[in-house]
């Protein structure tokens, strides 16, 4: 360990920009913490362990190559046909190839858009991991990274402008001496809580609606497509709340993440929920069979929605803040009851 640096006086006329005004560069210049080999080893070992535990990452270069070259060749061929058609005066062939070019162009644009959104999703996931790793310890060493810089990254990731009222109230609450952990608490309060509330309302409404729709739909096939449509719409909107625009591929990916999340991370939660579900299903015995189906669909949607919130939220929930299925169950139940009562009356 090197000695602590001694104190030092500076002239008063030294230009001293306010700490809060110069945050971008602050990270690099804060004095580095004396390094302790133990924690270094730990942090070096942790990622490899994580990587070993994580599912294997496949980059689908082959698929991308095939798609890209198909697009390229198609464009080349259409261009060639167009060229010869104008030379030979074959207007019909020319028009067709023009249409073909247009279609290929649109396809390429869509592909690029998908890639771009996927990249954004990945960046989101990375940021989330960093927020959770670096910021979780209450006494974490604050000098290694500047919390405000990370907060700013999060802000731009969520698509908020610096003038957004939520960001402004966060900036006002934040003090230069706040540690990473404390900053995280403030971010959760000022930036995320309003969105959490909106997301919760959304899930409540959508799952209630799904329940009703499934209950009144006459065909199982329609049920399934209804479920798929509603769930995807819900996922999109939740992601948008936390600043993610989903494309087709990123939606699939998120969907997969959410499902995996439901299967693994939430195993215990599902176990307790399932018990409760059985209980409410028991109650559901009093409902008609179709309403019972609706209840099931609604609860599944609600659970998916809650998981989607937990997956897309940039900072993991505090244990006591996590929205629970139990709160939503009642809502779904009430909607169905109202439906049943309404149908019995006339």
């Amino acid at each position, binding site marked *: *360990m090197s*000695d*602590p*640096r*001694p*104190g*030092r*006086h*500076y*002239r*008063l006329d*030294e*230009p*001293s*920009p*306010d*700490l809060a005004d*110069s945050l971008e*560069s*602050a990270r*690099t*210049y*804060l*004095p580095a*913490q*004396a390094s302790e080999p133990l924690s270094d080893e730990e942090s070096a070992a942790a990622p490899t362990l994580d990587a070993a535990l994580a599912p294997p990452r496949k980059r689908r270069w082959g698929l991308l190559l095939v798609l890209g070259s198909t697009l390229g060749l198609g464009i080349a061929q259409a261009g060639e046909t167009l060229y010869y058609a104008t030379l030979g005066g074959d207007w019909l062939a020319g028009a067709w190839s023009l249409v073909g070019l247009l279609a290929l162009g649109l396809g390429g644009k869509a592909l690029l858009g998908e890639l771009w959104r996927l990249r954004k999703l990945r960046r989101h996931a990375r940021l989330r991991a960093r927020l959770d790793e670096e910021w979780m310890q209450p*006494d*974490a*060493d*604050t*000098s290694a990274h500047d919390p405000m810089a990370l907060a700013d990254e999060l802000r731009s990731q969520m698509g908020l402008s610096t003038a957004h009222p939520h960001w402004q109230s966060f900036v006002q*609450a*934040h*003090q*230069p*001496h*706040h*540690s990473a952990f*404390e900053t995280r*608490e*403030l971010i959760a*309060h000022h930036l995320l*809580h309003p969105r959490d*509330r909106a997301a*919760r309302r959304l899930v409540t409404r959508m799952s209630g609606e799904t329940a009703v729709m499934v209950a009144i739909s006459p065909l199982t096939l329609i049920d399934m497509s209804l479920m798929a449509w509603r769930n995807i719409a819900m996922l999109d909107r939740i992601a948008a709340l936390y600043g993610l625009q989903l494309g087709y591929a990123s939606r699939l990916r998120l969907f997969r993440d959410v499902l995996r999340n439901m299967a693994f991370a939430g195993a215990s939660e599902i176990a307790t929920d399932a018990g409760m579900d059985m209980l409410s299903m028991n109650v559901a015995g009093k409902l008609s069979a179709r309403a019972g189906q609706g209840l099931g669909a609604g609860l599944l949607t609600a659970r998916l929605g809650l998981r989607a919130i937990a997956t897309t939220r940039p900072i993991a929930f505090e244990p006591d803040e996590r*929205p629970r299925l139990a*709160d939503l169950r009642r809502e779904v139940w009430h909607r169905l009851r109202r439906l049943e009562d309404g149908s019995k009356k006339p």
Partner: protein
Amino acid sequence: MAMRRALTQEIQNLIDRGRDRQLRLAVTGLSRAGKTAFLTSLVNQLRHAGIDARLDLLKAAREERLLGAQRVSQPDLGIPRFPFDEAMHSLATTPPRWPEPTRGISELRLTLRYRTRRAHGLLGDTATLTLDLIDYPGEWLLDLPLLEHDFLSWSEAQLKAMGPERQRYAHDWQSAMSALTPQDVVDESRLAALAERYAASLSDAREAGFSHLQPGRFLLPGDLQGAPVLQFFPLPGVQESDRATLEALPSTSLYQTLARRFRYYQQHVVKPFYREHFRRFDRQIVLVDVLGALNAGPERFEDLSLALSTLMRSFDYGKRSLINRLFAPRIDRLAIAATKADHVTPDQHANLVALLEALLAEPIKDLRYADVPVRALSLAAIRATQAREIEDDGRRQPVLRGHGLDDQPLLIYPGDVPPTLPPRDFWQRQGFTFTGFRPPASDGASALPHIRMDAALEWLLGDKLR
């Protein structure tokens, strides 16, 4: 069903209203640790909660549920009032001054009004919390181990515990003692003079930065000034092996007189404090001036460490601990704070907490074992500096801007805080010089600037504001 729910809610409200929501929060620390500043700022922040106080780390305040606080007259008329107005007054003079040092115990009662929290950020009814704030010297807690001793073993332990530098301050008293033996008959005035010399040696040592000094009341006698109960001292040269002969001495002998006073001190000074005050505290914060101890050098620093572990024994609720056997206290949450964090730049705060934890490693272990929730943090009750950055040799350098105690403006990097106790040889090469600052200019009508007072409040009473 809805009706039943409404009914249970109603009943719950009744219970809440009926239940006396009350909390006794005690603040302690050794001399000059920053107790008065802490309590002054605490009262000031709570009074300004919801108006201009920034208490973002206090959940109730962040959620805008804290409505405000009011001072009410205290219940114990026998305890001096905490000098809040005097302290605020000296902070508001020009140039601002720190509050005067205080002696002994004092108390202040606040009532807090807040809205209860319901699920999903909804606001509930308003509720009141009565908060009793008590400031008492940490030196009084140093006397707890004294209860384990009798006069003989205490004398032995005291003289053994003196290090070479500490001995210097006791030299005067020791030379006066050298002519005396335990069987001498010593008259009252001579005894008083000797005791005075002993007390002077203690307060000299404290002036010089030592903390582990017994008996604690000799330093802060309060209303006992000059009473014979404070006129005793350890006897040099007595040993456990002589116990039988010493016990057989006549009651007029020096040994017997001192032993009698020692017992009286135990019974009538140490125990009543624990019985009448300490036992009734619900929450406790212990303030530690870590930076001051670093300034004072290695022997003082170790002495502080020793004093703190002695002091912390009062919070060790292990089943077999002394405190539990004697008094059955009920403190259920403890904070340990390094004060004056505004003396160093914000990037050093983590080190400051680490050092505090290193200093208290053993007591904290014991507390965790006894399952007393404890949290260490760094804070500045009244933030006297501003964190800035400057360009220095092409690097950005965090600095502090404030006014020195002599009212001169300063721009300073105070130096690093080591995260662990520095090795011996370091002290010879380089010491620490964390300079003091005068308080920030204030008009007395706005909230005082602070560092992490809100975090301390969240830990100490956040759970009562749900």
